[in-house]
């Protein structure tokens, strides 16, 4: 699996934060769910997406 170089990861970090601020808390879940669908479609692999969902479920507390 490809990895983002740090400089690009930092740019995504900022872009996501700005989008979340723009969206506001009420639409946050909807926005993030849409984002997952879009990225899943670009990944193009069910197993990789499901693994990412599992990983995101870790350490939520």
């Amino acid at each position, binding site marked *: 699996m490809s990895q983002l170089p740090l400089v690009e990861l930092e740019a995504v970090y900022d872009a996501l934060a700005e989008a979340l601020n723009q969206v506001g808390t009420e639409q946050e879940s*909807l926005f993030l769910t849409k984002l997952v669908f879009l990225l899943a*479609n670009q990944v193009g692999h069910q197993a990789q997406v499901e693994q990412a969902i599992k990983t995101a479920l870790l350490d939520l507390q």
Partner: protein
Amino acid sequence: MYIPDSTPRASVYYNYQIYPFQTPPELCGETKRYSVVIVGAGPIGLVTALELAHYGISVVVINAEVQVSHGSRAIVFTRRSMEILQQVGIAERMLNKAYAWRSGNSIYRGQCVFRLEAPHDEDDRFQPLNNLQQPYVEQYLVEQAQQNPLIELRWGSKVMGVTSLPDHAELQIDTPEGEYTLSCDWLIAADGAKSTIRQELGLRMEGASYSGRFVIADIKIDIPWPTERLAYFDPDWNRGNTILMHRQPEGIWRLDYQLPPNETPEQALAPDSLNARIQAQLDMVGINAPWELDWCSVYSARAMTLPDYIKERIIFTGDAAHMLPIFGVRGANTGFQDAQNLAWKLAMLLNGVGSAELLVTYTSERVTAVQEIIAEASKSTRFMTPPDHGFRLVRDAVLSLSLTQAFVRPLFHWRTSRPHDYHASALNALNDDNAQFINGPALGMPLQNICLAENNYLFDHLGAAFHILYFTDQIVPKSILDAIKALQNQAIPLQLLVIGKTQGLPDHDGHFAKRYDAQTGTAYLVRPDQHVCARWKSLTADKLTAAVYQALGQGAK
């Protein structure tokens, strides 16, 4: 004393006729054991009765009401249902009145985000979907049954109790002239979703219920639109909820709209609420026309089935056996397949050519089919009426993306009822050439219709029997004709249909042979319910005989 309501039901489009109660022999001091009794004169009970009569089986049909049904019943009949209804003789009458259609539209924020055309094959006689109100279908079936001397219809007769015994069943029946007991060798429960027989026996269904509730309203209104399925998601007047619209004959439209959570059926059906919501939907779609309500009720989706459709001598069919969500037209369309699957098996058993194991395959084949239908229906239902927070969020995300992102639009597919494929059936031949075919209906599938000539189709030539479709331009080998004769002499209903360029069913240009991947000597063995149970590249008499016994549940012979 049970007194049925003999006032014709009120309807803005249908004239109800009363079928009066008639004194049965049991109330004149006669007692008799009947072979088959069917409870319920709805579409499934009547199709089962008509199918059984095709095999020479006498049937008594018990019905509590004295008229056909009303209310928000079935309106969409699939091609497969039309093929089954052709066998019981009402397809032509239905087509004279029904609206055929094949396109469905999903609309979000005023935009058609998904449009699906159900495929139509040039060899099919019937269109993929046909809209007609259930009272008409019931009326045609009743009139067909009335003309059949093997079918006795007992109207105004209400089942009060049932006793299940290892070798027969007994019904307690109440009538306007008092109660009586009816004994039968086989009892078929076709008494609907609220089946008295299922409840009396304490049988439990397994599966899921969905909390989303819908009002189903049939209104008379003039809307100049083609017959297509219309599904509106999250409209401004009913945020978060779903609305369906279907066109029916006689200027009737069905509106299904989802209710906000926590609203009771009484609140939903209060005239003010009903009128305001129907008007809001019509306003949203830009229809400004007077309308009149015919019927309304509240519905919530369930996807449940009995785990076994046979208990001793009692057999469950249709909604009495399973309750399926309306999204995808699976109620009556699934029930017809039950009826057609059951009738030939029970008839073969009663006529002494089928084994007890044959009848058991009714439950194994149909429970498997219904579980598959439930899995599909549940996907549609979770999209139409998301059952919880997670499903709502992903559904809403898909709605939002659908305005610009084509890849999510297939998730709107409503998965219309389709015939089950009995590929794993114990009745299929053990050693045929199924895997060698590159075309044609595979083992377990229903036959594909073939247009033989104008207004002349393969299914027009099928009847209440096994059929051998035998492809040849030469004479049929004597060994095969002898094998067929020997089976027929054992009272097995078996018909040979030869398909050739110059004989039998006409195949002048080889189109039929091509679609069935057939050469001279190729054969398909077809069950009486039109599902393939064996196919061979080159048929021999021994293989044919073995496959017929296998299909009758006599595999060991």
